[in-house]
């Protein structure tokens, strides 16, 4: 029965030896990571008006948009000679991008462009976005600040709940995911606007979630398992969480893929970034985060000794308190 098969895709209790292959995977990640960084440094990100400032006018024609005609009209005027005109979603719809912005409430670039286009056919101006340079700069600054602080807080919390090596490894996995996602954004020349920032933040959340859940299993394994070699504990833990990681990624993938296919042009960039992010996040929480932990030489034995000491101290404290309460001290 098909249903039955679907229900137990991950029935087996097989323990995969992920850690034996950790070097090839880390190499692969390293290559992608370096290429992404290279792309970011050479090609850079295509900042949209939200961050760079500028003006966007979205126009929808009743027939196919006469892009060449529009281009020649706009290029003829001094103000809009550097305007870029691209198709948006369908042949009827175009986006006109201008790097400048006007801060005067009474003159509107959208109106000006609309007046220039009057002879090009029947159209409707559907969107005019103007972002001044101050707003974009502030947004960039605050965005970076938020990102930096988030990483710091994660570092502190995970160190507190787990151990510092777990924290460093999870931050590494996060940076890994975000940089690769940014690399893909650069490669496919996606306009980086606020929605892309939101997607990156969502990826951050997902990736962190995945990594913590794998790490939690490793922590549990270290405490309960009889194995003393970290590689074995990690293999066991990652294998045990494999079904969960895959299932969750799969359900998220459903939502993101439908967003990508049916969400319309305006949500395309967001959905694309999420697609990349979910894929990379899943890969990194299975193959990379734990590998990094092993590479950092996390010692199971030491951790157990420390845990035992902690327990002992706690017991002594309790004993002292009990004695104190009984009035013997």
């Amino acid at each position: 029965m098909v249903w039955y098969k679907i229900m137990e895709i991950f029935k087996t209790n097989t323990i995969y030896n992920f850690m034996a292959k950790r070097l090839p995977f880390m190499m692969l990640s390293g290559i992608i990571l370096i290429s992404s960084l290279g792309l970011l440094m050479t090609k850079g990100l295509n900042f949209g008006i939200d961050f760079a400032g500028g003006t966007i006018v979205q126009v929808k024609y009743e027939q196919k948009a006469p892009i060449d005609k529009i281009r020649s009209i706009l290029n003829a005027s001094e103000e809009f000679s550097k305007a870029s005109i691209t198709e948006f979603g369908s042949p009827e719809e175009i986006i006109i991008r201008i790097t400048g912005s006007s801060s005067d409430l009474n003159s509107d670039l959208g109106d000006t462009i609309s007046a220039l286009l009057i002879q090009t056919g029947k159209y409707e101006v559907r969107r005019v976005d103007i972002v001044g340079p101050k707003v974009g700069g502030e947004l960039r600054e605050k965005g970076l600040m938020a990102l930096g602080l988030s990483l710091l807080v994660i570092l502190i919390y995970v160190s507190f709940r787990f151990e510092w090596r777990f924290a460093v490894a999870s931050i590494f996995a996060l940076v890994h995911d975000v940089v690769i996602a940014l690399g893909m954004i650069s490669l496919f020349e996606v306009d980086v606007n606020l929605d892309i920032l939101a997607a990156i933040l969502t990826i951050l959340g997902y990736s962190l979630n995945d990594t913590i859940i794998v790490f939690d299993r490793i922590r549990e394994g270290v405490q309960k398992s009889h194995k003393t070699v970290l590689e074995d504990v990690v293999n066991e833990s990652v294998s045990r969480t494999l079904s969960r990681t895959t299932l969750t990624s799969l359900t998220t993938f459903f939502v993101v893929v439908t967003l990508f296919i049916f969400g319309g042009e305006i949500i395309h960039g967001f959905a694309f970034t999420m697609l990349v992010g979910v894929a990379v996040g899943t890969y990194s929480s299975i193959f990379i985060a734990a590998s990094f932990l092993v590479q950092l030489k996390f010692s199971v034995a030491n951790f157990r000794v420390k845990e035992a000491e902690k327990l002992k101290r706690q017991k002594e404290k309790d004993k002292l308190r009990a004695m104190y309460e009984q009035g013997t001290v």
Partner: protein
Amino acid sequence: MKILNYRLVIFILSIIFGVVFAMPSFLQSESGKKVSLGLDLQGGLHMLLGVQTDEAVTSKIKTIATSIKYFAEDEEILIEDLTFKDNIISFIVLDSDEITKVDTMLAEIQGLDIQKTDDLSYMISLQPAQIVLTKDLAVSQAVETIRNRLDQFGLAEPTVIRQGGEDIVVELPGIKTAADEKAARELISKPAHLELMEVDEDRADQVYTLTAAKAAEYGDIILESSDGSGTKYIVKEIPILDGSQVTDAQVAFDQANQPIISFVLNNSGAKIFGDFTGRSVGKRLAIVLDGKVYSAPNINERIGGGRGQISGGFTVVEAGNVAIALRSGALPASVKMLEKRSVGPSLGADSIKASMIALILGFILVIVFMVLYYGLAGIIANIALVTNIFILIAVMAMFGATLTLPGMAGIVLTVGMAVDANVIINERVRELLRQGLSIPKAIEDGYSNAMRAILDANITTLLVAVILYAYGTGPIKGFAVTISIGILASMLTAILGTHGIYETLLPRINKSKNLRLWFGIK
């Protein structure tokens, strides 16, 4: 059989809460608090305006100069060289006997920094604290003024709120056409700064030859006529009165049936106006609006009653907008547009249709998958998931939040995390069942094993959300709020709620022993 347990009771209460408070939003009903759609989804105009607060400081000092001038004339104190430059007023009192009078008058005005170069020469500026205060007041006044104007303009639900130190967010969901938008922008940006100024008749014949700098030496400025004819007027820089003394303004029609704006002054304004006109018979009075002279009639007699009018070739609509602007007060300083987003209603409708279809389709896929994979456990997880969405919408409605595209992204993440919690729990339970544990033991241990992982994952995400809220602007804040509410709701539904359902159903699960039906395993 024990049907109710505390977990289930809390869960049922939260379902009721979610359904009741989310309903107005789902039905988009008139009554009740609901989540409204952001401008990117329903169309409209969003603007971020920057108030040029330095102008407010200048105009405040100018007002002080006006009152010094009026005081001196009223008390017949002779002062000389009353000028105003770089936010400093300077003047010389001619009669040393009058010094005490002047000092008492100045002492009544708060926040002044008074310096005397000698016994008779004054240099007056604002104290730094007063400057800060003035700037702050200017922004809140600008918010008030813009709100008043938009209310009178008759648009649906305008939002005008202050953001940070000097910025104002204006949101107008009611804007449908480019013409509407233009009219609204003009109304907002109109300074509506009315000044009644004295024409400097001594130098009126030199108006076309004097440079601005030369005029300034005499304490004069040269203004152009509003009709575009190039006619110029030379007037005393410090006005007699300004628009702050106007209590009412209406459109009226003159003898030629041309629209004019008639205005009424308050008591003190009327007194100043009466005194001035009484003293200045035979001179001209310039009526200046936003730096342009609309008319400069001769003063034939003392004008009491505090009424005046502005004429000068308005259309009826223009006159109406000027009247609204005068009534709702002048902007204390001009505003600049830092950001503008206008979304046509058809685009908004397209966006929401597309993203809704995608979200709902994705949601259905997840729900179907969960049932196929987990059997009844999947249905229980789905109940939690749906409740989670209801609670999320309900809480957002209570906060009066708006749903924007980034907000939808937050919902996607929330749905993901809520499903994830149940996947983690179910996988744990399955694992323990496979190890041969009894069903009640497997459920109990499954939950407690999964708990730590879910808590740690959720708390870290919550911490990140808090930081985003603190540092983010507009849409990012919305995103942070959505995921924070979603995470808290998922703890309530996916962890507590499903656990409650299992507890109630336990005797039945135990009896049937059909692990494939209940948990999707053999």
